[in-house]
């Protein structure tokens, strides 16, 4: 129990600092982490990722849900705090510093430098996710492509595309 809590706290604390461009970038690496430790199987992990997308709230929620499955309420709390606090401290420090040093060229350079890195890393995460979950069924591949295009082209809430995907997935199993 204690060792699981430590592994949740340290693991998600470290991973939180790698979540460039948001929590969803971490889905593949968290998948590897939790399955390697034998905490969750592929199907359960898919379930909590799907839930974190559908349920209202920030989509980092798959992380406390892992904690909940592994170690109950305490696991949920440890995972949540471990994931939230390190970046939040950094964000608050950055916000305070930017008020004073926002005009410095180094700050502007850092801001521009992070864009290509973030875009590359996010694209990599998307590809790993698509490869891991969508390559065996044609309908999943089509959903990946269609949702990518729709999100880029349309201003509608992504919830519509998630709902449509769920409906298509359910129908696919019915026939």
């Amino acid at each position, binding site marked *: 129990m204690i060792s699981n809590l430590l592994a949740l706290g340290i693991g998600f604390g470290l991973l939180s600092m790698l979540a460039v*461009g948001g929590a969803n970038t971490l889905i593949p690496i968290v998948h590897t982490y939790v399955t390697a430790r034998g905490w969750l199987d592929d199907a359960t992990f898919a379930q909590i990722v799907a839930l974190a997308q559908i349920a*209202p709230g920030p989509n980092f929620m798959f992380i406390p849900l892992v904690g909940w499955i592994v170690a109950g309420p305490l696991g949920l709390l440890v995972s949540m705090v471990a994931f939230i606090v390190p970046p*939040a401290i950094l964000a608050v420090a950055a916000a305070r510093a930017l008020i004073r040093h926002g005009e410095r060229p180094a700050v502007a350079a850092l801001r521009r430098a992070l864009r290509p890195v973030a875009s590359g890393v996010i694209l990599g995460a*998307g590809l790993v996710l698509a490869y891991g*979950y969508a390559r065996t*069924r044609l309908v999943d591949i089509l959903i990946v492509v269609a949702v990518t295009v729709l999100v*880029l082209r349309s201003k509608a809430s992504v919830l519509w595309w998630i709902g449509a995907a769920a409906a298509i997935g*359910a129908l696919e199993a019915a026939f």
Partner: protein
Amino acid sequence: MAEIALCFAAMALRGFGGVLGHSYDILVVRRQWLSEREFAEVYGIGQLVPGGNIINVAAILGDRWAGLAGATAALAGLTLPSTLIAVALLGLASKLAGEPHVASAERAVVAAAAGIVLASGLRTLRTIREAGRPRLVAARAAIAAFACAIACVPFVGLPIAVIVATPLAFLLERRAAR
């Protein structure tokens, strides 16, 4: 303090499919706690720092309004109620786990999530054209491609990509600005 927590809780619970749009609506349009420019600035910092964007925004604003207690209230309001709802939904979902069409729908939703991630990567990629000569833009694109390729390596790829590509990109921007 309670007002901060409630405000972020309301934002999170309205946030089906992402909280950010609602945060703009509540903070700037309805309550007018922030100007449009302040919102953009805070959101920019939230994106710059790793972690959930809206989580970082909540921490910054809570801190600005009421220090550590404010940040704690904002973060708790944003994350606790919605996570408890997700736990309740998980109980429901695991009862249905044996059903083939539920499992199939879940896989399809993960495929949709992959599409959402890919789209946000492509959207960020568009911004590298900003304020750059063609050679600079090409170098930025090379860094993005490098980070993407490394990040595809299971488990170790993401940390290596971030740790190696960030200083490279920073040096590039420093040289370009000269």
